């Protein structure tokens, strides 16, 4: 009994410390995102909650849905206009299983690189509705290099070994040429399917409306388009529209403005995710 009382007191003490930290961090760029996610066949409905909180030199992130919880910790070292290095770890636990994730990315002068490693013993979408419906091991390596001021080479390499032990690889090489608009050309392979890549990004008007489109076509077909337009001259609020169309048929439509975000998804089944973000630190 005494032991239990001691444990209770200790738990209460930890909660008070955590609350104190939260309150002291109030106004320092923390945010709360409330959401509701629904999916048809099989039917699934869950509220979602995302919390971002600065903790000393780190950013603490927590996310919660029905039957699963994820916690992440990240930080970065800034070199002003020369670049930055950021890194983070994340762990998720739910009734369906568990997952871990580590990532690091850096940019310094003409070079940018990123590395991520994920492992989960269940589908990652069972631990967080926003994640892909894949489990097992996933490794990703990305790099970008500026050949000169207006030409950039990009390379993406990926490796997956799913829960059945089937391994798949992917690779994509791109070349981007920036003039008034940016044109991207590339070649890629994903799961033994080859494709070509064409991209275009540019401003549509003087008000800063920007369109970014990428088409992958060949044995794999996917069109991605993102339209962003400022809603005020200070660019504090933007309207973002995202569309992804793929064949075999899959589609995603996203809308974002004033902290509100809606994502409708179809990949053989429909899902809808509505979210609203409350920023306490003037985040945009």
């Amino acid at each position: 009994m005494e032991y239990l009382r001691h444990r209770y007191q200790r738990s209460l003490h930890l909660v008070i410390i955590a609350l104190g930290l939260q309150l002291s961090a109030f106004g320092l760029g923390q945010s709360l995102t409330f959401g509701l996610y629904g999916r048809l066949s099989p039917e699934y409905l869950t509220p979602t909650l995302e919390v971002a909180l600065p903790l000393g030199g780190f950013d603490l992130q927590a996310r919660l849905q029905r039957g699963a919880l994820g916690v992440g910790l990240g930080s970065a070292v800034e070199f002003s206009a020369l670049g930055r290095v950021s890194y983070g770890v994340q762990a998720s636990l739910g009734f369906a299983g568990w997952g871990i994730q580590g990532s690091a990315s850096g940019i310094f002068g003409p070079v940018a690189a990123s590395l991520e490693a994920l492992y989960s013993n269940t589908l990652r979408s069972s631990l967080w509705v926003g994640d892909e419906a894949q489990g097992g091991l996933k490794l990703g390596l990305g790099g970008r290099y500026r050949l000169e001021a207006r030409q950039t080479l990009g390379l993406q390499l990926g490796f997956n070994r799913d829960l059945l032990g089937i391994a798949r690889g992917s690779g994509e090489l791109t070349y981007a040429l920036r003039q008034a608009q940016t044109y991207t050309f590339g070649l890629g392979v994903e799961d033994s399917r080859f494709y070509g890549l064409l991209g275009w990004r540019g401003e549509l008007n003087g008000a800063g409306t920007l369109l970014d489109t990428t088409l992958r076509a060949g044995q794999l077909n996917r069109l991605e388009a993102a339209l962003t337009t400022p809603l005020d001259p200070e660019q504090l609020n933007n309207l973002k529209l995202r569309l992804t169309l793929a064949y075999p048929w899959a589609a995603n439509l996203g809308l974002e403005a004033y902290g509100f975000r809606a994502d409708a998804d179809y990949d053989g089944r429909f899902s809808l995710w509505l979210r609203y973000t409350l920023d306490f630190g003037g985040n945009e």
Partner: protein
Amino acid sequence: MKRLLTLAILFSGFVLAQSIAEITRQVQANLDRSPWEATISGRIQLPDGSSQEAEFRLQVIPGREQLARVEFNKPAALEGNFVVISDKEVWNYLFLTNQVIIQPRSRARVEGLGFNLTDLGDFNQLTERVTLRLAGEQNIPAGAVWRITGTPRDASLGFASMEILVLKSDPRPISITLRDGANRVVADLDFGNFRRANLTPQALRKRPADAEVLRRN
């Protein structure tokens, strides 16, 4: 006679000290008069010891809510990157990853290049960080200039001594040279294409609409 000489030296030192305060005041008043922009170009030494051509566009809106934007044209590796500095925040835009990193000014590292370039647009701040001394006057093609030397009060500024040429007819810096402890040139920059411009805070804060915004505390 000796005492007279001592007095003369002391007096000339006093006059020079007065002059540097007066020059600083004139430069500040001139730069505070209206928004302006200029191109800073020359060579800088990179952290790895190599020297590189550099060109920045500096835009300043003076006043109570001062705002400065430094846009990189050279070296090519940094082209498209920019830094926006306000009283409260520093924005760093990285072209390669299309990210804007926003930090409170008090915690931001603005001296990524060894020297805070916006100090040139805020002479009062420069005098707080560097002890300035009038080293003389000279004539260069741009006109008559004051030659001002300085030593940093804070060793972390990344240089051991500086020399600034200030145009007398239109009091503003026209060149700056920074040297390290071994008297090697760390940066040698000219301050060209100076012009008064109708700048707005919106124009200085402009960034690609789709840039990822990361707020750091």
